[in-house]
């Protein structure tokens, strides 16, 4: 483990990959890995990219990665794809878009992950993998997830800037608002904007964002960029927009506040998880659990009172 960590900190690709595997499979050593990694993490900039399937996220990741590399940054990428609900296996295709005409001096580490079999939750594993990349010296960490349900909220809790990618076909702003994307986006991109309808959707999102920012009196008003990643249109502007958010974060302790908020949530979740684990472990050792279920079943006790009884026990632990 010492050797593995040392090599990984030195930037050795295979060692970094193997560390990530350890957290992916919840290896007994994974906590130790994270404990040793953590002091070195925190320097990187975390960019999250989300949006509906087919929005062209991976192409955009490729284009933005180039921009970061051209500016001399090393980049770590974690691309999460859903897995088959039937077999648990996954076909991960984001990597197909990388490597095209890449310069040899560019430092890019790309890792694909399937959402399904990730033990302990998508958000934790991606967060840990991102921290490993961070600790191993990557300057920019990009986390790409398919925006379906929970994962975009996870991404918002794990990154400094969230880029939401839409396409002209994504629907009107009401739908987008319903999907919760307004809440998490720091930057919007309407990809494939060579198609009709791009400007309309961009305008309506823009208006909505302005109103929202006025209402909440936020300093940062997310901008909407029209891009066509495949044709390399608008990439420079989008890249500058993302950099601008980064600069914004560095002013007035925005970054510190954002990360502290995220850490609090993370900590809380970890504590909750641990407590639940302990309680259930204890319950399974005794017959109290079955007894209480029985009491509830027979309507001698209501569920909330039963829960209080259990947690009363926890307090004694």
């Amino acid at each position, binding site marked *: 483990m010492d050797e593995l960590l040392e090599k990984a900190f030195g930037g050795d*690709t*295979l060692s*970094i*990959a*193997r560390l*990530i*595997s350890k957290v*992916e*499979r*919840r*290896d007994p050593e994974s906590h130790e890995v994270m404990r040793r990694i953590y002091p070195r993490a925190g320097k990187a900039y975390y960019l999250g990219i989300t949006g509906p399937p087919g929005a062209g996220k991976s192409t955009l990741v490729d284009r933005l990665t180039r921009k970061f590399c051209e500016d001399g940054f090393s980049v770590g990428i974690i691309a999460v794809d859903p*897995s*088959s609900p*039937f*077999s*648990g*296996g*996954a*076909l*991960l*295709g984001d*990597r*197909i878009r990388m*490597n095209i005409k890449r310069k040899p001096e560019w430092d890019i*580490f*790309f*890792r*694909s992950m*399937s959402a399904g*079999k990730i*033990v302990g939750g998508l958000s934790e594993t991606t967060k840990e993998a991102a921290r490993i990349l961070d600790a191993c010296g990557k300057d920019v960490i990009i986390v790409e997830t398919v925006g379906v349900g929970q994962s975009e909220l996870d991404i918002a809790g794990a990154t400094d800037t969230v880029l939401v990618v839409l396409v002209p076909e994504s629907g009107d702003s009401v739908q987008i608002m319903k999907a919760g994307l307004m809440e998490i986006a720091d930057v919007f991109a309407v990809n494939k904007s060579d198609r009709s309808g791009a400007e309309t959707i961009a305008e309506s999102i823009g208006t909505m964002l302005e109103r929202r920012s006025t209402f909440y009196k936020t300093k940062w008003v997310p901008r909407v960029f029209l891009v066509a990643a495949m044709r390399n249109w608008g990439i420079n502007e989008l890249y500058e927009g993302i950099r601008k958010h980064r600069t914004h974060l560095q002013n007035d302790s925005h970054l510190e506040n954002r990360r502290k908020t995220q850490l609090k949530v993370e900590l809380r979740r970890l504590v909750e998880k641990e407590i639940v684990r302990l309680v259930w472990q204890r319950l399974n050792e005794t017959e109290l659990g079955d007894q209480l279920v029985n009491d509830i079943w027979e309507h001698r006790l209501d569920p909330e009172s039963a829960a209080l009884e259990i947690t009363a026990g926890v307090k004694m632990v």
Partner: protein
Amino acid sequence: MARPIKVVMAKLGLDIHWRGVYLVSQFLRDAGMDVVYIGNKFPEQIVEAAMQEDADVVGMSTLGGNHLTLGLKTVDLLGKSDMAGVKVFMGGVIPPKHIPQLLDGGVHKVYGPDTPMETIINGIKDSVSV
């Protein structure tokens, strides 16, 4: 805790036929594996993918006659990159008389046309569990 078997699947070099490699990828996915499909790639890129993904298995497909050159080069590079433990499978149109050369060169198994998917799936599972 176990992770699904992770397979990096590539179309070797310029070969244009994606039907077989994609089908196999789908069947492996349906057999519960995590398949990283990387499209047409050259040896250095395949090795890089195998390393970064920490793959258990690398699958290469070619119908273009580059199995002895690019195929063996990939195996060789994997060895040099401390990835000798990764099992390499090849498929596609490969003349039977070239198979011994590939196996000697470190390819774990070669599956020609007409191979039932089950044979491939089991071949991969067996190779990883050993």
